[in-house]
């Protein structure tokens, strides 16, 4: 059994605000194996970006990790001191953010930025350093890398810049790459190119990729497995093929139904009534129950946990025996919503 590159167990992140305690993610657990792409999909406020930020230890105070553990190749990283975390960031975990325009420093040539990153995390210097940088640029598909080495970020197009950002993320050959909405700011024709590139790089470097996005289409193309997030929890996780074509959780069903598709003629889109709850007032029991078309007795009271179902895992009382109203302790006692 290969050891997972990233292992997250029962992660909980809170943001204390003046009025109430905001639970951004609650009891989130998943693994990513080497060379695997795990997609994390959800709408605004579902907590997917917070998960990525928590893993690399960049949650801004007063927000904090309030529970759970994060393991990188077996070693625990959520409680590391800042200096140790800085060494891990970049070397063992690479980040790709949404906006390539702001990810690169406009004042420095991209060659300099690349060599600086490589030099920080490896022992390469001088000519070997430059060669490695050029090789990376070539690997991400920048044409004529020896010449583009001396260009500034503004001389690149959006898609090219994102390739450079990928090169930067892979510069130190990390075990894990966290990509937060890497294709959202790009044109649709470029998105396909970048997704292809990311998959190829993951396979070649045996890196694990956590792909965070709201775009189910990107997930369907790029990910091997997908975790669907809602109000800070994972409601369904499984192989992409199964989750996309045969979703189990009613939220996933509603989500897939509301995505416009090319073959649907002028018919109505499925719509989920209402909107995602504010994170300071998450409903009791299953957080989706106020909007769920299949809600029944245990849903408002008991919070479902992820349990295996077919080839996936799903947190829904439709699939697992629900506790009877009298016997079970209510969900709030187990550190659920405030």
């Amino acid at each position, binding site marked *: 059994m290969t050891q997972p590159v990233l292992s997250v167990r029962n992660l909980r992140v809170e943001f204390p605000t003046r009025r109430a305690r905001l639970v951004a993610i609650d009891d989130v657990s998943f693994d990513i194996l080497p060379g695997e792409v795990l997609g994390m999909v959800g709408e605004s406020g579902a907590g997917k970006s917070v998960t990525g930020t928590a893993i690399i230890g960049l949650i801004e105070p007063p927000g904090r990790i309030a529970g759970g553990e994060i393991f990188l190749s077996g070693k625990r990283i959520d409680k590391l001191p800042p200096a140790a975390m800085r060494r891990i960031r970049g070397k063992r975990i690479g980040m790709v953010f949404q906006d390539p325009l702001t990810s690169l420093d406009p004042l420095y040539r991209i060659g300099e930025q690349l060599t600086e990153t490589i030099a920080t995390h490896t022992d390469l210097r001088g000519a070997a350093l430059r060669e490695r940088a050029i090789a990376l640029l070539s690997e991400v598909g920048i044409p004529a890398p020896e010449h583009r080495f001396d260009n500034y970020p503004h001389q690149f197009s959006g898609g090219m810049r994102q390739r450079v950002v990928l090169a930067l993320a892979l510069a130190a050959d990390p075990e894990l790459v966290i990509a937060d909405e890497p294709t959202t700011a790009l044109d*649709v*024709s470029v998105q396909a190119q970048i997704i292809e590139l990311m998959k190829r790089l993951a396979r070649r470097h045996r890196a694990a990729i956590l792909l965070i996005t709201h775009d189910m289409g990107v997930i369907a193309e790029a990910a091997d497995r997908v975790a669907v997030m809602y109000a800070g929890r994972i409601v369904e996780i499984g192989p992409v093929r199964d989750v996309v074509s045969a979703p189990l959780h009613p939220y996933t069903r509603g989500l897939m139904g*509301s995505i416009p598709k090319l073959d649907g003629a002028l018919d*109505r889109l499925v719509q989920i009534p209402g909107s995602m709850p504010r994170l300071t007032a998450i409903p009791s029991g299953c957080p989706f129950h106020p909007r769920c078309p299949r809600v029944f007795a245990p849903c408002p009271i008991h919070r479902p946990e992820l349990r295996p179902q077919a080839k996936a895992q799903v947190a829904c009382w439709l699939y697992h025996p629900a506790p009877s109203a009298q016997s079970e302790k209510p969900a709030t006692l187990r550190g659920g919503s405030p």
Partner: protein
Amino acid sequence: MTAASAPPLVRAENLGRIFDVSSPWLTRMLENLPRQFVVAVADMSFEIARNETLALVGESGSGKSTVAKMVVGLVPPTTGEVFIDAMPMHGRRRAAERRRLRRRIQMVFQDPYASLNPRWRAFDIVAEPIRAFQLAASRPEIAARVGELLRLVGLDSADGGKYPHQFSGGQRQRIAIARALASEPAFVVCDEPTSALDVSVQAQILNLMRDLQDRFGLTFLFISHNLAVVRHMAHRIGVMYLGRLVEIAAADALFRAPRHPYTRMLLDAVPDLDMSGRQRKPVEGEVPNPVDPPKGCSFHPRCPFANARCRSELPPLLAARAAGAVAPTGLVACHAVEEGRI
């Protein structure tokens, strides 16, 4: 779909817009630089019939937003003219005629966070067109109308007292739609109205817009970069690349049998959510810089079918037939299609 005899509600004739992006005069003098222009839109001609939705699809730099702004009169065209119900938008006219024209056109913008004044209450935002066009006289009348509009878009009339920051993105877009309907327009231009919204909210808004179109007989010009969204909204679709129309056809025809290589590429780039295992062929290259477009057909650097003629000669929009069809199914600007090569 549309009666051939009824005149179109909207007609754009040869619309074009050039932006001057030259450096300031002093810089040009000192550094001996030439003036620089960007052709944002060129040769745009199209018609929209009553109660029809025409979609304009394109990526960044295609000029679709500029076309939208020209059609509503926010940006004056450099060439060409827009006719609403046979009335020209930019000719010199008396103020009363211009106001009548303005009343018939409205717009829904892309960014729900920038399209509502953060310091105004929802009530005043929706009431502004009513007051501007004097559609109701007294305050109670205005209040009744605003309440009705808010309910029409799925909000509560009591929401009028709130400020925009108290609403979610989807709710703000509903307010924007209510504002657009307040002047009882005939024609609404929607500039990427759901691009900034979550996918489940997008579904609500798109359904709402279609319901309103059916109920009030509205005509839509729908701008988007997302072909799948457009599939659900449009009767006819125009594909734009670097400021020009490259293909325009009925929605069915476009999706079933796309002619222009760029249209095919766009369709191919839509992700395969049916998990059919369809192989995506990512096309090389990106949209070129509009300041320095390629000669001839602007798509030729990325086109697998480009020949010498494509590199030197701009293809005109010509009627084209889908394979096996009898009558022309749309217009395509492509030498390869014209020559029968594809």
